[in-house]
């Protein structure tokens, strides 16, 4: 099936994204059912709103948190995308940037935070620790990847990732949000944690 919907990100050409194959596969899965024109237009409008207003939860456990602060600061300025409204209450946040190591003691807390967030909610795993445990993967007290407990939308590798990769990750998330369907069978594609 041909990919009908292609999210555009302002001043970032489609070809410059590194993982277009995976992305197109995802788009195909999401849009397999198809929908009529009016609904698609409404969908586009809502997706436009959502993708441009991803308010992050202030959540940082370690080093990556400092880089997240740097992203919010003057040089990288996440506010350009409209993401600067960091919310401290999970109820009001749209995206949780899991930046830093998640230990087994923190895991239930993170899960609870995720459960407390209101739909639609997205997860970005930032840094090696959140993706796989990173340098601490052999430790007895570290969770080997947050995707074991919560579904992850975007992985941003690095230890810690540079601010540029933060922004790239957020743009990837925007692309993902832009092809979701609001009307139809499910509000969004059901994601299940790996284990």
């Amino acid at each position, binding site marked *: 099936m041909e990919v009908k919907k292609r999210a555009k990100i302002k001043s970032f050409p489609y070809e410059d994204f590194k993982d277009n194959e995976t992305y197109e596969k995802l788009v195909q899965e999401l849009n397999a059912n198809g929908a009529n024109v009016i609904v698609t237009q409404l969908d586009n409008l809502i997706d436009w709103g959502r993708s441009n207003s991803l308010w992050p939860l202030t959540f940082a456990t370690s080093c990556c948190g*400092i880089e997240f602060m*740097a992203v919010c600061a003057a040089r990288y300025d996440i506010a350009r995308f409209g993401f600067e409204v960091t919310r401290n209450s999970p109820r009001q946040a749209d995206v949780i940037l899991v930046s830093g*190591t998640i*230990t*087994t*003691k923190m895991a239930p807390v993170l899960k609870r935070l995720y459960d407390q967030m209101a739909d639609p909610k997205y997860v970005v795993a930032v840094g090696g620790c959140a993706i796989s445990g990173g340098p*601490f993967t052999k430790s*007895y007290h570290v969770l080997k990847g947050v995707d074991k407990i919560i579904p992850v939308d975007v992985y941003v590798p690095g230890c810690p990732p540079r601010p540029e990769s933060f922004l790239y990750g957020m743009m990837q998330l925007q692309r993902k949000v832009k092809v979701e369907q609001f009307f139809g069978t499910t509000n969004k594609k059901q994601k299940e944690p790996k284990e």
Partner: protein
Amino acid sequence: MTLDNIKTLEPSQLRAEMQGLKAKGFDYLSNLIGMDWGEEGGLGVVYCVENTATHEQAWLKTASTDREQPVLPTVSDLWDIANIYEREAYDFYGIIFAGHPDMRRIFLREDWVGYPMRKDDKPEEQNPLRMTNEPLADDTTQYDVQADGTVTTKKNVVFGPDDYVVNIGPQHPSTHGVLHFRVALDGEIIRKIDPVLGYIHRGVEKLNESYTYPQTLALTDRLDYLAAMQSRHALCMCIEKAMEIEVSERVQVVRTILDELQRIDSHILFFSCLCQDMGATTAFLYGFRDREKILDIFEETCGGRLIINYNTIGGLMADIHPNFQKRVKEFIPYMRKNIKEYHALFTGNVIFQNRSKGIGPLTKEQAISFGCTGGTGRAAGWANDVRKNHPYAAYDKVDFNQVLRESGDSFDRYMIRLDEILESLNIIEQLVDNIPEGNYKEKTKPIIKVPEGTYYQAVESSRGEFGVFLESKGDKSPYRLHYRSTGLPLVAAMHTACKGFKIADLVTIGGTMDYIVPDIDR
């Protein structure tokens, strides 16, 4: 330094010896390290006490061969900080301290099985991932040894049924990470703070025991990521001294400059976060603007922004960048100018002054007893700068002041950091033009084996004395590698500093204490 004179004591002699030392002026307990010396050596503790007047250190150790219920006497009534250190030893080694009022786990979950740092413990098998919310008990156990040698238990209350307990953290914007305070409130007034740690306990010390020496280096950067240079410097120095590697003058000087740059970086971040916590968001961004300049210098020379991985055993990863000196020299006047702006923007602000002066004071005695080194201790008038007391690298060649203040309140803790930025700039200014020629790295063997022995090296990190305690059996990985956390004493002192103040002051006090949570939990 090599520790070949650790005094071994029987548990029964320990208290008398410790009381004697305390009376002789050894009023600062810098380390209390749990140890597992196997079946014969038993489970024990290494103590390091320091005389704050003469800077003389005394090292002692004691052990119990009972692996089922090892009982050692407590010293928590002599030094306040021992309270939390002994809980750490209990948590990791299961050593029970008789007479300690609060024998709870501190880092691991209360339903954790086993004691992970014991050599024979298999923590992963006994502890699957528990997704239930952690039970937090409101009472605690005290163990006492009776005259006939039996151990009795007693219940102590942490929070009573009438306490209005608010959880601040682990997910809270102003705890600087995943710190968890259980705070008993009376209206807005704080009555008690009970820190619950370990939300970012990554088991670094246990990991070290299975890693080779070069591998252990990587983890130091990630402890206190705002003192990455200094922590790694400490470990490198410790291993170099143990292996008797002489690093060149050039390395010494470059390490000193980078340590000081790191300190400025950390203090700027301290300023920014304090402003943010107190509601002055604009000042936060001003701080970050200047911090980027330092990160640029780091990036050019070391390749990293936050986790730098620059020091290595025997020297540095690479020589400094040709632009390094030029950039640093540009930075010095720039930063001096901006410090003035910080003072104009924030220090002079009447709201800030009202919110920080007289808030959360720690006296000199309290600071020493809690082992609050770094800016927090110096704000109270305790001259604890390792760079002065036990000089290392190029610090004995430069001329700088140890900034001291009197009252130890939040305002002084804040001012100390801003003044230290200026001192650090002075140090850098003296060194940057005189970087001697030499090797940037000494040749080391491909497999690094540290000779058998016990070694300790402390540096002045961004927020206090960071110590590396290394016990080697001559293998390619350490037998025990312990880090003296700079933040743990600060968290231990939070109750004393915050009691009777308002909940808004908790944020100010926590901000000016300047702790970094991964460094506390390790």
